[in-house]
């Protein structure tokens, strides 16, 4: 059988079973992934999850204890940083304050002993690409944050790196500028066809710029996939909670199974709920049923649910109007409360407040995902 794939044969970067222990803690443990040419991938996770250490190992500033790093098939695990040819954009940009914009951008070429005319051409090209032409003679401290970031990007582009490493590149910019720089950087990366690995703790930022996200936690990779994969089919409770918001309901899978399509489980209140097998990563024992607030369907008490089964009775405790959507906090019992997100114009149909706050909640089986408890 021939498997057709649009991926080229050699990954731009391959990280194999990378581990790093610092004196008192394990920073990275058995991390593996592949980055294909032209991809924009985010390493996403909370602080201390090992994402920055991983990036620094790729750049050569941290030596791994175990594992390999392959750049276009070549083992660079033991290469010194200056021989790796990966372009790192630092969180604080790390522009050389004693050099002009031009000298900063030309630094990599000077280190490669390029001729002065070649350096000039390449510097002009790079500054043009980041829309910084005309500011060649400025010093870094005379530039705004966004301009400094552009120079930092031009500097690694001019040096000829085909793999960009971006370490929290947008965290020092204000919200508005951050969005436009994200779009700009993404466009630039696509136009030039370079590969980018982006490290961030901000899931929205990761989803905005990347086609693929690698979620890390406590030194390990939790999940590797597209934003939709991670949102719809989180592999663990950690991913489910880190990406967006969600409801978690404790339960236990029943011994006798419903059928090939669904798995049946009991929740604490005693009700029985069906979940589709396809979405679930565990199918036995104690589980957490995970469902997104916008996937929960709510109707007036006693109304006919769209389908039979998976209907729970609840009481609306809080109603938060957020413009286009409204969040309802629905208590199923003393301990379990669900967050439900509905369109604001559908709230009036629930007849809340007039007679009672009781509502019917329907959990669509195909939207429920069972995760290990």
């Amino acid at each position, binding site marked *: 059988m021939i498997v057709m794939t649009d991926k080229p044969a050699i990954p731009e970067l391959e990280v194999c079973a990378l581990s790093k222990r610092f004196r008192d803690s394990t920073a990275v443990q058995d991390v593996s992934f592949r980055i294909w040419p032209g991809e924009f991938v985010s390493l996403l996770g909370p602080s201390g999850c090992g994402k920055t250490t991983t990036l620094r190992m790729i*750049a*050569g*500033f941290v030596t791994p204890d175990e594992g390999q790093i392959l750049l276009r098939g070549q083992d660079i695990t033991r290469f*010194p*940083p*200056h*021989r*790796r*040819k*990966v*372009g*790192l954009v*630092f*969180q*604080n940009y*790390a*522009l*050389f*304050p*004693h050099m002009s914009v031009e000298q900063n951008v030309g*630094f*990599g070429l000077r*280190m*490669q002993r390029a001729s002065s005319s070649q350096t000039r051409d390449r510097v002009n090209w790079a500054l043009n690409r980041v829309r910084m032409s005309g500011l060649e003679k400025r010093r870094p401290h005379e530039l705004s944050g966004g301009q400094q970031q552009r120079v930092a990007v031009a*500097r*690694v582009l001019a*040096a000829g790196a085909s793999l960009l490493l971006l370490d929290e590149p947008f965290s020092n910019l204000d919200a508005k500028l951050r969005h436009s720089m994200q779009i700009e950087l993404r466009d630039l990366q696509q136009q030039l066809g370079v590969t980018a690995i982006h490290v961030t703790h901000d899931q929205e930022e990761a989803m905005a710029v990347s086609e693929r996200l690698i979620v890390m936690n406590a030194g390990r990779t939790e999940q590797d996939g597209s934003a939709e994969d991670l949102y719809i089919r989180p592999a663990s409770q950690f991913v489910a909670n880190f990406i967006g918001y969600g409801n978690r309901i404790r339960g236990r899978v029943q011994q006798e199974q419903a059928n090939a399509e669904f798995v049946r489980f009991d929740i604490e209140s005693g009700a029985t709920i069906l979940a589709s097998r396809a979405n679930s990563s565990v199918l036995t024992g104690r589980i957490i049923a995970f469902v997104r607030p916008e996937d929960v369907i709510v109707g007036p008490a006693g109304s006919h649910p769209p389908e039979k089964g998976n209907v729970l009775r609840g009481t609306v405790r809080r109603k938060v109007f957020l413009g286009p959507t409204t969040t309802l906090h629905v208590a199923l019992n003393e301990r379990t409360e669900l967050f439900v997100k509905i369109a604001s114009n559908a709230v009036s149909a629930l007849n809340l407040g007039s007679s009672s706050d009781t509502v019917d909640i329907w959990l669509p089986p195909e939207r429920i995902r069972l995760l290990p408890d």
Partner: protein
Amino acid sequence: MTVQRQKWLSAYLFLFFVCLESPLLIIVLTSFSSDETVSFPPAGLSLRWYADLWHQLWNQGGVKPGLAMSLWTSVWLSVLSAAGATVAGVAAALGLRFFSSRSAGILKQYLLFPILFPQVVIGIGLLLWFSALGGMPVWTKLLLGHFILTMPYVVVTTSASLEMLDPALEEAAMNLGANFVRTLGHVTLPMIRAGILSGALFAWLTSFSNFTISFFLYSGETRPAPVWIFEVLQFVIDPSLAALSTVLLLTTLVVLFSANRILGIGRLVGLRR
């Protein structure tokens, strides 16, 4: 109220500086005396002792021989030992970074010993060593002595600059293809320039004005200016010595001010890059 408080503050500052600088002030005032002997306040003002000093400079004999030679010794000794101390001190400060912060702290304490202990102790120690080794030229002894005394200043100021240096800058240089040496030359050293220069300046100043170590190590005509002053002082006390001191003071001030003009005082103490 604020005005009054400012007045008090000004008065306090004035008194503070008078106390601080009074020894220098009295020397400078005495140097313009028209008296035959050193007395304060001087009976009249004149430049005669500066003329006397000028005369001494070109006459080798008399009661105060060897002034030109000792000034020349001081200049060369201070410049050469400061240069050596700067090279070695910067290298030491850079080397300290390869150790853990704990070991670096301990090593730095050892490097600072020469300025933590009384100079008399260092002087006696050096004297004993040099006589044990035997047959060393006086210049070698003086240079080594001053080098030991001045290097710690360079280590201190350079280390302080290095601690303020953002490690990301050196990493950026390496990331862009600069090896260790080129990173040092293109990024590290230019960035800590102010620390190195202020260390060199302190080293020069320390050497130029040092008496104790020089006193233990000099011999014959090779005696730095402070030692020469001390020796002459044992035989004659006239205002020409005050004039010489004023000239030395002025030289120091000129060097410090021109360094300040080039670097700025903020850079000199390592506050500004």
